[in-house]
C-alpha cells in the first residue's frame, strides 16, 4: 500500500488464468471479473435435467457446443426407475442438441474429463459438480457451480468470479512408504478444518508434491472442496506434460502457465512430508482426521475403493501392494469401483485387478456408485465402513445410521484384510 504498483504486478497461476479469461492484463484477490469459459462440464445429476431444462426455458442455444462436455456417472448402472429416467433425459437432451462431446458411462466425470484431453494448463473451466476442483492437477482453473449458474454459462459462455486469495500448502521432503496424497490432504483438513480455505484457491507445491504422479495430485486438488476452497491448483511441469501427451489435449504449454515466484499469497502452510503418517478421518466430517493409530482396531463391515478421489490407477496399485496375496477378512465386504473404464482396463492389463480379485474384492462398474450410497456398496443400517472417497457426512454413503471413515487406498485395503482399521505400513 502507498507505493506505486509495478505495471504488470506479480500474479499467481490462478490469477494469470483468471486475468486471461477476463481479458485483463492483471487481476488481484477481491476483484470481481467476468470470465469467458473455455470448458463447461456437466453430469447427469445437475446437467441436462436441471441446467438443460433452465436453458430450454430461456429459449436460447448453447453458446458453443464444442466447449461443452456431458458425462454420465452419478446415476449410471442403477436399475432404480428414477435413475433410469435421468439417463433417458440426459441421452435425449444430448441427442436433441447434437452435442459433439458426450461421454456416457465411461467413469467419473473428474477422471473422464482429463482422460479425454479436455483439460490443460491455463484453461478456465466450470463444472456442475463441487469436485470440479480436481482439474487443478492439470494447471487448469476449474470451479464447481450450481445448476442455475450452469444454465447461465450454457447461454452466455461467461461467468463472474471473485478473484480468490491463495492458500499455499508446501509439502517438503518425501512421503514415507505407505503414505499417500490422501493422507496429506486429510491432514490439512484436520489442521485447518473444512472451511479453512473458504473462498481461497489452494495451491499445492513443494518437493513432495513435485514428486507426485498426476493421479496423486488429483487427490489433492479434488479435496480442495473439503476445505471450502474455490478450487485447487498445482503448477504444471514435465509430469503434467507427459500425462497429457497420452491424451487428445493439444497445445499444452507448461512454460507460460506458471505463477510468479514473488506473487503475494494470503497464507502459506508448511508440512514436513517425511513426518506425515497415514491419516483416517472419523465419522462424519473430513476434518476429523487423525493418525491411523488413533482408530486402529475399529471393526469395519465394508472397505470401499472408489470415487473421483480414490480409484485412479495409482490408488488401485496401492491397494494391490497391500493385499498382495492376502485374503480379505470374512465378514468385511471389499469393493473396488475403478474411477473410469480406462483405469479398469489398464488395471486389468497389468494384473492389478487380478491381485485385488484374488484377495476377495468385488469389482464394481465405474461411476459414483458407493460414494453416494448407490449400488452394492451402499452402507447398510448401522454399518461402519472405510473408503477412499472424499466425504463422510451423515448418510452420504448409505443409511443415516451408518458410519464412514476416510483413508487412502492403502489404509482401505489394509482394513479389508484385517476387518478393522489398520496401519497399512504393517503390510509393506
Amino acid at each position: 500500500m502507498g507505493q506505486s504498483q509495478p505495471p504488470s504486478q506479480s500474479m499467481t497461476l490462478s490469477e494469470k488464468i483468471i486475468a486471461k479469461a477476463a481479458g485483463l492484463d492483471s487481476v488481484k484477490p477481491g476483484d470481481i471479473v467476468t470470465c469467458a469459459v473455455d470448458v463447461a462440464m456437466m453430469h447427469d445429476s445437475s446437467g441436462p435435467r436441471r441446467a438443460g431444462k433452465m436453458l430450454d426455458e430461456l429459449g436460447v442455444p448453447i453458446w458453443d457446443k464444442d466447449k461443452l462436455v456431458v458425462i454420465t456417472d452419478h446415476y449410471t448402472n442403477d436399475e432404480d426407475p428414477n435413475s433410469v429416467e435421468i439417463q433417458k433425459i440426459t441421452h435425449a437432451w444430448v441427442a436433441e442438441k447434437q452435442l459433439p462431446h458426450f461421454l456416457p458411462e465411461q467413469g467419473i466425470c473428474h477422471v473422464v474429463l482429463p482422460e479425454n484431453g479436455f483439460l490443460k494448463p491455463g484453461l478456465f473451466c466450470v463444472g456442475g459438480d463441487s469436485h470440479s476442483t480436481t482439474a487443478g492437477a492439470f494447471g487448469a482453473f476449474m470451479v464447481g457451480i450450481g445448476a442455475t449458474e450452469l444454465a447461465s454459462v450454457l447461454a452466455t459462455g461467461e461467468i463472474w468470479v471473485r478473484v480468490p486469495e491463495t492458500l499455499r500448502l508446501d509439502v517438503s521432503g518425501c512421503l514415507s512408504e505407505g503414505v499417500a496424497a490422501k493422507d496429506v490432504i486429510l491432514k490439512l483438513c484436520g489442521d485447518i478444518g473444512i472451511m479453512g480455505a473458504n473462498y481461497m484457491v489452494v495451491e499445492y507445491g513443494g518437493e513432495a508434491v513435485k514428486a507426485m504422479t498426476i493421479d496423486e495430485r488429483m487427490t489433492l486438488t479434488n479435496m480442495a472442496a473439503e476445505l471450502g476452497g474455490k478450487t485447487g491448483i498445482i503448477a504444471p511441469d514435465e509430469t503434467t506434460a507427459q500425462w497429457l501427451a497420452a491424451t487428445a489435449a493439444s497445445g499444452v504449454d507448461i512454460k507460460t502457465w506458471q505463477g510468479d515466484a514473488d506473487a503475494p499469497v494470503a497464507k502459506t502452510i508448511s508440512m514436513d512430508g517425511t513426518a506425515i503418517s497415514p491419516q483416517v478421518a472419523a465419522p462424519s466430517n473430513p476434518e476429523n482426521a487423525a493418525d491411523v493409530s488413533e482408530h486402529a482396531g475399529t471393526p469395519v463391515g465394508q472397505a470401499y475403493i472408489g470415487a473421483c478421489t480414490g480409484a485412479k490407477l495409482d490408488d488401485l496399485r496401492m491397494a494391490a501392494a497391500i493385499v498382495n496375496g492376502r485374503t480379505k477378512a470374512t465378514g468385511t465386504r471389499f469393493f473396488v469401483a475403478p474411477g473410469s473404464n480406462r483405469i479398469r482396463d489398464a488395471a486389468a492389463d497389468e494384473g492389478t485387478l487380478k491381485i485385488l480379485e484374488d484377495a476377495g474384492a468385488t469389482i464394481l462398474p465405474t461411476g459414483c456408485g458407493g460414494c453416494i450410497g448407490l449400488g452394492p456398496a451402499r452402507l447398510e443400517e448401522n454399518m461402519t465402513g472405510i473408503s477412499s472417497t472424499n466425504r463422510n457426512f451423515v448418510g452420504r454413503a448409505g443409511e443415516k445410521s451408518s458410519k464412514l471413515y476416510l483413508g487412502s487406498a492403502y489404509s482401505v485395503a489394509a482394513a479389508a484384510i484385517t476387518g478393522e482399521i489398520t496401519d497399512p505400513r504393517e503390510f509393506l
Partner: protein
Amino acid sequence: MSDSNGTGRAWVYGDNIDTDQLAPIHSYKNMEAEEGCKFCLEPLDPNFASAVKIGDIFVAGNNMGIGSSREQAPLHLKLLGIRAVLAKSFARIFYRNTLNFGVPALVCAEVDRINTGDELRVDALKGRIENLNTGETLECEPLPDHLMAMIADGGLMPHLKNKLQRE
C-alpha cells in the same frame, strides 16, 4: 422484489449459519419454496420466519451459509422478504447463490456494531450501511455495477432474460 437500497430492521445472528438451518431438509424435499420458507432458520430461531418483515436485513458473522449448495437456502430468505444479507464472511456457494437470486450479499467487517432491531439503510451499490439507531455508518466491500444490475433485475435468470431480449 424489494428495493435493495431501502431501510429495514436488522436480524442479527452469529457465525456458521448453515444451509440446514436456512433450509431444513423437510422444508425443501417435498415442498415448494413458497411453503418451505416458513421453516427458514427454524432450528435456531423458530420465531424468525413468522416475525420477519418485507425489507428486513439479515446480519451474520463468519461463514454465512456454510453447507450444501442447495439453492433453497438463499431462496427462503428472499421469499421472506430479506432485502440484503450482511456478514463478516460467506461460504462461497451460498454467496453466489444469494447474489444469483437477486439479493445483495455484502461483506462487512463491522457487523458487530449492529443489534437486532436496529433500523438500517443499506446502499448496496456504494457498499454502505447506515445504522439509523446509532447514527453510525459502516463500510462494506462494494459490489461492482454489473452485479448490481443483475440484482436490480431480480437475479441471474431474469437478468439473462432481459439481456437476451435486448440483444
